[in-house]
């Protein structure tokens, strides 16, 4: 029996060692390390160390980093920083809050919540985060909570690699990636495009327990730190929005986590103001950001 007990930790160490040694060769299927991504998360987590006097800090998925443009808010005298990243689920938001909230010190936090994010398993966004954010111990429970071997194996490699290698420290992420252009403050602007609406199959939103628990931890953490926060759902095309058959239940559910807002604008048109079914184009962003800033953010900030 002693041999079995000795073997298990040795096997674990051996596996970790080989993953660290071979993880960079691209030959290990479940180690998917890739530095840099269209969400520019690497750039953001380094840039946020330099920013000061931030009024609003945004967290969330691509719906956050492709919607909240610091230039539009700045015109209205509000300084924001956008920490949104691709498919960011509450599991990843929690890591970012734990590690960057105290540095940025915002007056208000906005957590963007989307009907497609809460049901997500969090695997891909976990990998983006592990590869692009400086390693911290908070990433270990985040990786384990996805219950996915690809995330765990990538975490083993990324945590060691990003701690020790100079590749991570000296990486320079290009400002232009495909049709995307990074704007200081965490926003990613896409080349102007319009959407051709398509019919959608009806679907239900089934939030995962692991994401709901993570969201609960996020808001409790913000409450403990005394930072005011709201939850915000950004507009989708009307075609997509009407395809969710339990959107009202989802919104009611989000209300349990704090003050939840869904500020749709009648003026937003599916083809004129979106570049795909769930992302506003620059014309839509400018309209919506001006509206949300004036009608929601400024009044809240004035009351703090």
């Amino acid at each position, binding site marked *: *029996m002693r*041999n*079995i007990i000795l*073997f298990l930790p*040795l*096997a674990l160490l*051996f*596996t970790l060692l*080989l*993953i660290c040694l071979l993880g960079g060769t691209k030959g*290990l*299927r*479940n*180690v998917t390390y890739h530095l840099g991504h269209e969400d520019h998360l690497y750039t953001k987590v380094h840039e946020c160390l330099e920013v000061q006097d931030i009024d609003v800090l945004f967290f969330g998925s691509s719906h956050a980093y492709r919607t909240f443009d610091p230039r539009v808010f700045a015109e209205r005298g509000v300084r924001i920083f956008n920490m949104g990243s691709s498919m960011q689920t509450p599991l990843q938001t929690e890591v970012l809050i734990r590690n960057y909230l105290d540095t940025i010190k915002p007056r208000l936090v906005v957590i963007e919540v989307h009907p497609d994010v809460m049901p997500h398993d969090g*695997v891909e966004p976990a990998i983006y985060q592990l590869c692009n954010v400086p390693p911290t111990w908070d990433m270990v429970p985040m990786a384990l909570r996805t*219950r*996915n*071997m*690809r995330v765990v*194996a990538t975490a083993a490699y990324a945590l060691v690699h990003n701690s020790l290698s100079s590749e991570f420290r000296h990486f320079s992420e290009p400002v232009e990636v495909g049709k995307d252009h990074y704007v200081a403050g965490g926003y990613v602007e896409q080349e102007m495009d319009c959407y051709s609406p398509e019919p959608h199959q009806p679907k239900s939103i089934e939030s995962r327990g692991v994401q709901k628990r993570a969201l609960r931890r996020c808001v409790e953490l913000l409450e403990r730190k005394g930072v005011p926060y709201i939850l915000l759902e950004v507009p989708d095309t009307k075609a997509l929005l009407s395809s969710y058959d339990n959107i009202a239940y989802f919104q009611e559910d989000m209300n349990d986590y704090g003050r939840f807002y869904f500020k749709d604008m009648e003026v937003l048109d599916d083809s004129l103001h979106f570049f795909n079914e769930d992302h506003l184009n620059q014309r839509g962003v400018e309209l919506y950001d001006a509206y949300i800033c004036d009608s929601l953010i400024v009044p809240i900030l004035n009351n703090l």
Partner: protein
Amino acid sequence: MLFNSLQFALFLPVVFLVYWLLRRTLRWQNLFVVAVSYLFYGWWNPLFLLLIAFTSLCSYLSGLGLERYGRHRKWFLWGNVVVNLLVLGVFKYYDFFAQSFADVFLGGQADGLLLHLVLPVGISFYTFQALSYTIDVYRGTIKATRDGVAFFAYVSFFPQLVAGPIERASSLLPQFEGRRSFDYALAVDGLRQMLWGFFKKLVVADGCALYVDRVFGDPAAFGGGTLALAAVLFSFQIYGDFSGYSDIAIGTAKLFGIRLRRNFNVPYFSRDIAEFWRRWHISLTTWFRDYVYIPMGGSRVGRGRVIVNTLVIFLISGFWHGANWTFLAWGLFHALLFLPLILLHRNRRYRDTVAEGRRLPNLREVGQMLLTFLLATVGWIIFRSPSIGFAFSYLGGLFQQGAHLSLLANDYFFLPAALLLMLVVEWFNRNGEHEFARHPRHRVVRWLGYMLLIFIVVCYMQTSEMPFIYFQF
């Protein structure tokens, strides 16, 4: 609960520890086995527990009745057989027959006829296991047990509950009736077998599934080469999936001091289809042989009866897998391959292992193995197809040109190496007690080998939980 789930990874060590803590009181230990087996099974749907408890109770009582009321033995036997097969028939086959009836007589309108019952996981496996007990008691092969707890543990023992091996009461029941002691060597061998099972399931079978599902999902989009490759990969997928499950089940049982029968014995190293059937899903094949084929006269009857018996046994075997004409066609296909061998008395030519006493096979043996594999693969195309029409169109597509999906692309690049590793290891273990039984004597080398295999599983496993194919049967 799946073997390849986090729940099982937490469940097994806890159950293992408590089980051996209870080793001094056999009754409590068996009661614990029943409780955790019901927990394991109820994880899918607690309502399924009613069925397995009903099957166990009927078979237990019929065993007692067979012994006590000798004059009415046949009533107890047939009563239990009919009740168990009725339950199986209603849950597994009723909708199929109702739909077929509607297709022929009602123009396909079967709305009012169908029950739409959920098929309980593993119902075919534990029903057959329970039936074998009653038949063996009737035949006098074993005595009826009075220990109800041991009997319930025999029917529900969690490692083999949902996909076998289908055990016989004569070998498993006495193990529950007698005291077990922890055997370190057996437990280590069990862990070794589990490790190999996980490799076959998570790396080989689930890896093949990615390619196979894509091609079988839209065969018209691909050319003959890709269809052939997908068929070959499905042969390895179903082998890796089912034999991997069996290895994990048998290995897990060994941790509890229980020995289960072997279910696979390197079937793709068979030299003809008769040998293939002695090596594939052995516990089911021998079940049908002992309880259906031999009572029908087996091969010791006239040629006409031999043909009928062979056809019946293969058709039943095919239909056991599921309520679909494709399974019947698969059984018929194998019957047609088997008949010439049995009629020419050549079905027992290869009772040894290929290349016995040699490291490598000769050219003739290689040819025989490839031909047998090819025939089995054609059978698997029928088995994998959702309908007979689909199977014919897939077989026709093998001779047409079209797009090619490379095995070395993206997600599949590791498959050739994984398949080669599996074949090489199993070749050199083909005479072993199981396919990963042989191991180097030197501990450092042995441990390095195990660690390397764990590393391969971690880095190349399919990461989404994919259920075992045979759970649906």
